[in-house]
């Protein structure tokens, strides 16, 4: 079976951050000889791919272990700090690896057992649900000013970070107010007020309209008529939809920029 090996090798060695790296001793599988031996290799975990290099400075990986459908377990090998990557497929070889110490072994086992794409996808879906629920709770809180337990989450009301949202609509840099009595604004345009200065909020899409006018579908007052309607409803919290939408905007801007370049600088 062919594999786009050049691209895979490039992915292994490019400067996108690795999830875990370190030296491990890898058991050598010998069919014809008895006894086991280990070879020290430099291991790099990126996503669901475990690469190993002959040396830390090697330009190309020696090998790759695809980590889907595997289990990682501590090993009863003669070696201390050994663990194994095993696959469901009966008869598939296991990869026996030996770490330098207890801490290194634990760190590797932890990292590898959570490396699968399936695991990531599970976590992302769960967070997606949680965000949706948080949005709904927030909307419910704002709609019922009493401390009702309809949302069952009192902490929303007592959370100081959320109070300002109920009291005043936040006017954002582009002059559009996004808060009103109903609905929840999508992630990406949330209030920058209670951002505790750790990170800057993502740039606000100019087409965001107030939730109050979303029912009528007409742009909020103040929106320039030249602005396009957002194809994505304000309640969108799905990252991939937002991702696509931002992407479209970028594609349009890029095309315009390229055309301007062709015509010479304006």
């Amino acid at each position, binding site marked *: 079976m062919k594999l786009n090996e050049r691209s895979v090798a*490039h992915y292994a060695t490019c400067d*996108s951050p690795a999830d875990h790296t370190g030296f491990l001793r890898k058991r050598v599988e010998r069919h014809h000889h008895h006894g086991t031996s280990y070879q020290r290799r430099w291991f790099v975990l990126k996503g669901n791919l475990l690469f190993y290099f002959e040396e830390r400075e090697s330009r190309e990986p020696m090998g790759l272990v695809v980590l*889907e459908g595997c289990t990682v377990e501590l090993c009863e090998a003669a070696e201390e700090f050994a663990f194994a990557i095993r696959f469901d497929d009966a008869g598939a070889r296991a990869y026996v690896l030996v770490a330098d110490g207890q801490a290194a072994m634990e760190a590797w086992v932890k990292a590898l057992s959570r490396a699968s*794409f399936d695991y990531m996808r599970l976590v*992302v879906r769960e967070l997606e649900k949680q965000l949706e629920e948080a949005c709904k709770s927030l909307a419910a809180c704002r709609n019922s000013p009493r401390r009702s337990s309809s949302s069952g989450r009192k902490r929303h009301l007592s959370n100081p970070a959320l109070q300002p949202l109920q009291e005043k609509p936040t006017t954002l840099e582009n002059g559009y107010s996004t808060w009103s009595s109903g609905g929840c604004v999508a992630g990406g345009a949330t209030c920058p007020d209670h951002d505790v200065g750790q990170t800057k909020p993502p740039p606000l899409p100019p087409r965001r309209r107030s939730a109050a006018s979303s029912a009528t579908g007409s742009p909020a007052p103040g929106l320039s008529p030249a602005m396009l309607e957002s194809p994505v409803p304000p309640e969108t919290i799905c990252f991939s939809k937002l991702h696509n939408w931002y992407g479209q905007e970028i594609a349009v801007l890029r095309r315009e920029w390229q055309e301007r370049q062709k015509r010479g600088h304006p």
Partner: protein
Amino acid sequence: MRYNERELLSLARQPAEKAAEIRMSVPKKGSVLKKRLVKLVVNFLFYFRTDEAEPIGALLLEHCKITKEEENVFSISFIEEPERKYCFECATEEQCQEWVEALRRASYEFLRRSLIFYRNEIQKMTGKDPLEQYGISEEARFQLGAHRL
């Protein structure tokens, strides 16, 4: 480069996120479009001859660019070799758009960015870190600003 082909073949037999018969060409001189069974499983795209059980090949979908080409057609190319394109001709424009969307979301890197995004949003809204329950909140790969590609 060695790899655990056996596991990859096993992965190719897993239920796919998306599978269809699509005409496909590889970036080789003189390559023509041929009908293939194309199957998306996690961050791999497998392609089979329509009557065979074992795939001809697999594409790891990291650091790749999915481009909508002319009508019904999209291509996959990789960051370090943008001119080498795998082309796919779909039956309809709708099918083409569906595949483009699905493939753009198919990388592990995309999942990672989604996770960081949702985590941050939940934290802003609720004041609570949703990853704590999984015991993975400290992992470097999930920190905001950790992955600027």
